[in-house]
């Protein structure tokens, strides 16, 4: 990209007022930027992150069982690489520009990230191997994927639900592995577990609620309306509070789930109401003639919904739904307010340690960057999916 003076002039100095605004803004930005850089390089003490990186990642997960999480991470990396390669198989060039950028980013993260955290060498080596494995799988699947039968390529998607179940067993134990109770899960692990669990379950629940709200059966319709409006009327923290304090009374003694799972279910039921509203807007965008046409062709109602209405509705509802998933990921920070050790909860325990008092700026900045990257990545993914699913070839709003 070339910076032309004409363009600069048009953008920044079109009128005297614009010029004044630009000068003031440039001054403020320069001052703020240099002050921030000075703080980041000379004043901030990043040892608080380096010394606690395991705690931030896993919480108090028992050290002798951490190999299970390494195994899971490796499996996830291999599956990601293979899926990525299969999606790109048959494309020319073999590594499109976006893929190259992603690969370079991954290599940079694996080398610079582990160096910045000052991880011991064996751990660094593991991260390098895992990233290398991911890229090798990407390369192999991309090279040979197109010669595989279509059924195998489609079937590869089954890996993910299987991997999720394997992951749950690896994390929580059972089947011969030493059980690790949920109270010992923490940090990023807990945040990701809670959000992935809630995202996976709230979506089908939300679709059912949205269909219920548009149903012709009054009981179903009013039931869905009451549920959705009740949940949307209450702040999440009061519902989490309800889950922690009342669920124990609602179920027979001993049947109530652990505190971590209670929170996971509350998050799921909370997000379902919001997803339902997103899906409902998608359903409203599908002309009623579609359902009528499908029904008059002889499709039973469930099939007409699954094959005709929902595919169109969900495509319209996609951006709003992913928006809700992003909110859900952010909402997991509320778990720290009810005493669970998610990423933010762990951060608070670290900062309560006298050794790291007054280091909150560093910790919160890192958490903010982490959350920002996750949320922005979800948003980017949603936009990419939107373009891919846009079979009508209408322009997609950025």
């Amino acid at each position: 990209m070339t910076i032309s003076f004409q363009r600069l002039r048009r953008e920044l100095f079109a009128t005297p007022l614009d010029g004044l605004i630009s000068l003031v803004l440039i001054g403020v930005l320069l001052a703020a930027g240099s002050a921030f850089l000075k703080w980041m390089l000379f004043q901030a003490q990043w040892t608080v992150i380096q010394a606690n990186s395991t705690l931030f990642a896993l919480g108090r997960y028992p050290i002798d069982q951490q190999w299970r999480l390494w195994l899971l991470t490796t499996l996830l990396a291999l599956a990601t690489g293979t899926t990525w390669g299969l999606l790109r198989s048959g494309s020319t060039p073999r590594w499109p520009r976006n893929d190259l950028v992603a690969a370079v980013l991954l290599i940079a993260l694996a080398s610079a990230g582990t160096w910045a955290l000052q991880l011991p060498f064996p751990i660094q080596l593991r991260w390098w191997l895992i990233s290398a494995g991911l890229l090798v799988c990407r390369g192999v699947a991309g090279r040979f994927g197109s010669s595989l039968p279509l059924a195998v390529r489609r079937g590869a998607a089954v890996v993910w639900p299987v991997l999720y179940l394997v992951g749950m067993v690896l994390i929580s134990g059972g089947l011969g592995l030493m059980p690790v109770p949920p109270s010992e899960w923490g940090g990023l692990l807990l945040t990701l577990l809670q959000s992935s669990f809630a995202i996976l379950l709230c979506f089908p629940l939300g679709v059912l609620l949205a269909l219920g709200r548009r149903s012709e059966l009054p009981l179903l319709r009013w039931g869905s309306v009451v549920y959705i409006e009740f949940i949307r009327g209450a702040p999440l923290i009061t519902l989490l509070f309800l889950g922690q304090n009342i669920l124990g009374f609602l179920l027979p003694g001993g049947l109530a789930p652990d505190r971590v799972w209670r929170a996971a279910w509350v998050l799921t039921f909370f997000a379902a109401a919001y997803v339902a509203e997103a899906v409902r807007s998608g359903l409203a965008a599908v002309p009623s003639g579609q359902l009528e046409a499908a029904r008059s062709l002889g499709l039973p109602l469930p099939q007409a919904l699954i094959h005709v209405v929902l595919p169109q509705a969900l495509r319209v509802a996609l951006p709003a739904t992913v928006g809700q998933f992003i909110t859900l990921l952010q909402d997991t920070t509320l778990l720290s307010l009810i005493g669970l050790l998610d990423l933010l909860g762990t951060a608070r325990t670290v900062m309560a340690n006298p050794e790291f008092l007054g280091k909150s700026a560093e910790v919160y900045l890192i958490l903010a960057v982490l959350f920002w990257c996750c949320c922005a990545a979800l948003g980017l993914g949603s936009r990419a999916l939107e373009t891919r699913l846009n079979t009508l070839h209408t322009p997609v709003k950025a």
Partner: protein
Amino acid sequence: MVALPDQAGTVTPWWRNRRLIPWLVQAAIGLVVLVVIAFLVGNLVRNLTAAGLLLSWGWLDNPSGFDIAETFLPFNAGLPYWRALLAGLVNTIRVVIAGLVGATLLGTLVGTASFSSNGLLRRLARVYVEVIRNIPLLLQLVFWYFVVFLSLPNGEQAIQLPGIVLAKSGLFLGRPELVNGVWQAPLRFTVEFGALLTGLVVYTAAFIAEVVRGGVASVPMGQWEAARSLGFSKLQTLKRIVLPQALRVIVPGLNSQYISLAKNSSLAVACGYTDLYSVAETTLNQTGRAVEVVLLLLGAYLVIDLVISALMNGLNHLVQIKER
């Protein structure tokens, strides 16, 4: 229900009757829901009886025994629980009203900045929205409180402007003066209130900016051009032509943002401000009255939401363009 013979003289079996089936389905669902509710309520009553906490409201009159740092209504530890909860509610309403005003102002400013002819300003507005929306509110609140507001200087080093002093001990308005190293003024806001308000305003403004941007963008360019070619000035065009059309789109969007701001104010506990939720939590810890406290909380937030909705619906009614 009587089965109807069809043309061939065969009888439609009851399980394919289009009028009967929906009712059977609903009856089945209703029965399941009723059984589940009965099961849950049964457990609730049994467990509460066993714990000696059966639903009652008499405890609201007992003295609370805890103090609230910052109240609008006079309050002390000797006053009953209902006064404590009321003080919390008033604190919530106070921060919500201030937040609504602040977020609307900042949001409108950022939203209009994204239409500026200045490229830098336009891009900064986008960056602001993208950065703020992708960071959890709770993280922003603890950042404002622990990193920004708690590191403010105290005493003589406090930030002093004419009539305003910002120190670690709070924001002082209306001729603040230093008495024995402590600032005093007729109007004082604590840093807890300041951090919560700043966090809520900055966060909600990013969403309101998007609402405003969407609203203004929904007015076709032709409307601007037509007005300008009729001789309207830029300001007149905005005021008489564009805004009335944009407001139709903006007001419903604002409604949902206002309601989320009210609900998000319940995160006050993270920066030490005693709002309704915070008082309720303390009350529950002291009395163990989980069901009553949660009911009160849910009811209070529902009423706040409904009030905001009602006001905004009234406003919506005003700004809708009446066709005949």
